[in-house]
């Protein structure tokens, strides 16, 4: 790890001005400290934002507001989240380990960087770490990599589970800088790699995430998260599916479907949602709707299995959520 200056921000203003001088925000530290130790991240200064007042979980009539410093374990355990947003609670509890969930913040979760082994290994080529250096994953070990939203520059999978749920539910990221507050629809927050994989989010330098808002809805209440992985616990997704269905009078009124483990960003599936909307639930419908889940996929040398696996993951989760009382 390279040396760095450390400060603790007493308030928002102190945090923003530290960042303006080039400091990196740190909350839980589970990603940043790890990557600093690997020398993937080399900040000259780090500012601890844990004293800022972003620790509340506030359920309002139409919106759940989650402070960016709320820990993953706190959000997952919150009774209103478990009742009204099961896919959020489930995606969190299926992430990382109990220890890491006690440390990691929701804002930091959205800021976490890819888990691609080549990104983490500074002896190999990685366009995300060193723009223009090339991508060792494309011709290398890429079994866990993305099949959707990839480019010639980068094929790293987006690692977050809860971000998949937040994308499915049309959450809004609230960020602040010296110019004031900004609301960023989460569908516009994450950037596909394209030719600039180092630019991972539509966030300005020094901008600070203060909260995430999620709309309350019937389909958020009837929802869940399915994660498929190499081992049963404490592992990143090979594939995952966040599904929420509003079924009224025997008809699917609203469907929300997003998938993880397959995209360079959390991947919404509007074609699957369209196929479900207005239809009556049935095993045939689940299969037909899920059949488009991998449309546009570009498998690599080792991850072709994800094309079929993601369809089956979506189909199974549609059936599970459709069968809920």
């Amino acid at each position, binding site marked *: 790890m390279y040396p*760095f200056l450390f400060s603790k921000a007493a308030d928002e203003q102190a945090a923003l001005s530290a960042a303006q001088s080039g400091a990196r925000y740190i909350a839980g530290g589970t990603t940043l400290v790890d990557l600093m130790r690997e020398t993937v991240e080399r900040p000259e200064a780090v500012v601890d934002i844990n004293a800022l007042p972003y620790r509340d979980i506030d359920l309002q009539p139409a919106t759940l507001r989650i402070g960016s410093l709320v820990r993953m*374990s706190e959000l997952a355990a919150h009774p209103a989240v478990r009742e009204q947003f099961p896919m959020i609670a489930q995606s969190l509890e299926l992430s990382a380990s*109990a*220890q890491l969930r006690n440390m990691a913040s929701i804002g930091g979760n959205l800021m976490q960087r890819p888990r691609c082994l080549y990104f983490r290994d500074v002896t190999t080529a990685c366009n995300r770490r060193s723009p223009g250096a090339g991508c060792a994953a494309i011709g290398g070990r890429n079994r866990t990599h993305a099949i959707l939203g990839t480019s010639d520059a980068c094929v790293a999978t987006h690692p977050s589970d809860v971000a998949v749920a937040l994308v499915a539910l049309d959450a809004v990221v609230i960020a602040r800088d010296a110019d004031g507050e900004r609301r960023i629809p989460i569908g516009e927050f994450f950037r596909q790699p394209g030719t600039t994989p180092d630019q991972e989010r539509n966030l300005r330098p020094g901008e600070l995430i203060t909260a995430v808002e999620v709309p309350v809805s019937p389909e958020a209440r009837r929802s869940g998260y399915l994660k498929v992985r190499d081992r049963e*616990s404490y592992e990143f997704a090979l594939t995952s599916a966040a599904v929420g269905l509003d079924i009224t009078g025997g008809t699917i009124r609203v469907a929300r479907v997003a998938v993880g483990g397959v995209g360079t960003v959390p991947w919404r599936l509007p074609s699957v949602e369209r196929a479900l909307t207005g239809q009556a639930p049935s095993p045939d419908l689940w299969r037909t709707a899920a059949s488009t889940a991998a449309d546009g996929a570009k498998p690599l040398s080792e991850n072709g299995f994800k094309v079929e696996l993601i369809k089956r993951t979506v189909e199974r989760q549609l059936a599970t959520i459709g069968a809920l009382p």
Partner: protein
Amino acid sequence: MTEPRHRWEIDRRTFVGGAAVVGGAVVAVPLFAGCGDDDEAAEAQTSTVRMRINGEERELTVDNRTSLLDMLRERAELTGTKKGCDQGACGACTVLVNDQRVTSCLALAVMHDGAEVTTIEGLADGDHLHPLQRAFIDEDAFQCGYCTPGQIMSGVGCIREGHTGSPEEIREWMSGNICRCGAYTNIATAVARAAREV
């Protein structure tokens, strides 16, 4: 790969180590008299933290890079907490910070000024073992023992969080602790047994 070192890195580590006084005042030995730049750089990149570790107030000046794990082991001389992967993947370094289990390898010591830390050394009440320590012995829940301090601290957290309803639940909520000897069956049994007793 060898990473380029800042020219003063090794010397500064020695400097910081030399300035350590556990549980008392910090006396910075002026190793760099006459080397103004290095002195300033070293000062800016160290911090003094106060923590209550196993009930005892400690004050330590640490390099900003020091993990809570390294501070405990190398500066506070509490080597019961183990370093396995040093990247949050194995759980050997689990301690309680303000009663919550965390992986101390991913925690920066400087971020824990004012924290209450409990390590495996702070669990027993004198010669009277914590029920989970007792259960690990009674259930033969280890073989080589290297992961055991982390397993026990994580188990204490797991019991406190109330996730001991079934062997499956214990396994899920203890999945952040790897045991390469494969003592999992007895570990889960020990956690379940202690959960009934505490």
